[in-house]
């Protein structure tokens, strides 16, 4: 079946601009996650959605970052007023539930802030 998809695959933006990254999870998966992968910081958790529960936003690095998940499916990660330190690969994952089930990752969006 179809895996997790993300778009765009690459995004180059100027410092100060806003960007939106999209994630389509695997159909039927109730849990959705965003992570960030960068050379200096490794893999960092950003945010977690589980069904209709309030999301776990504990990993968002600043209030410039926000995410939503509409209709329990597609998710959008928005970064406002981008900074150079936001440059990274943003990975989305989904899982059947948020407990014992493994997470399946998308290919990522490589964000470059110039």
């Amino acid at each position, binding site marked *: 079946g179809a895996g997790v998809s993300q778009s765009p695959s690459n995004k180059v933006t100027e410092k100060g601009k806003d960007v939106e990254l999209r994630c389509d999870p695997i159909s039927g998966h109730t849990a959705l*996650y965003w992570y960030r992968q960068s050379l200096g910081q*490794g893999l960092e958790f950003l945010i977690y959605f589980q069904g209709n529960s309030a999301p776990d936003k504990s990993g968002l690095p600043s209030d410039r970052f926000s995410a939503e998940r509409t209709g329990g499916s597609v998710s959008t990660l928005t970064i406002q007023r981008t900074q150079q330190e936001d440059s990274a690969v943003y990975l989305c994952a989904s899982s059947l539930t948020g407990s*014992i089930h*493994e997470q399946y990752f998308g*290919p990522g969006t490589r964000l470059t802030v110039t």
Partner: protein
Amino acid sequence: AQSVAQPEDQVNVAEGNPLTVKCTYSVSGNPYLFWYVQYPNRGLQFLLKYITGDNLVKGSYGFEAEFNKSQTSFHLKKPSALVSDSALYFCAVRASSGNTGKLIFGQGTTLQVKP
């Protein structure tokens, strides 16, 4: 706080030899443990997990891992390495309690298998 340590940045083995990639963890309560592999310019692929039960778990591509509670370790192993196993490997943990599914990842270990 939860944490994962992968003490080796890189592991080098010859094709056909056994390989071990080390992982230790720290978590409150019982852990759920995972191994993922990342090939160049690709996303993470799930290899195997430990939730409960038998301490030796088997996963994809002939990999296995042993959960050792007393040593808080979850080392990844394979009896005979292939050149195609060369990739970046991540160990991850989450606590079995609490209502967050987030994974805490180690820094990753690059496995280099030479012919």
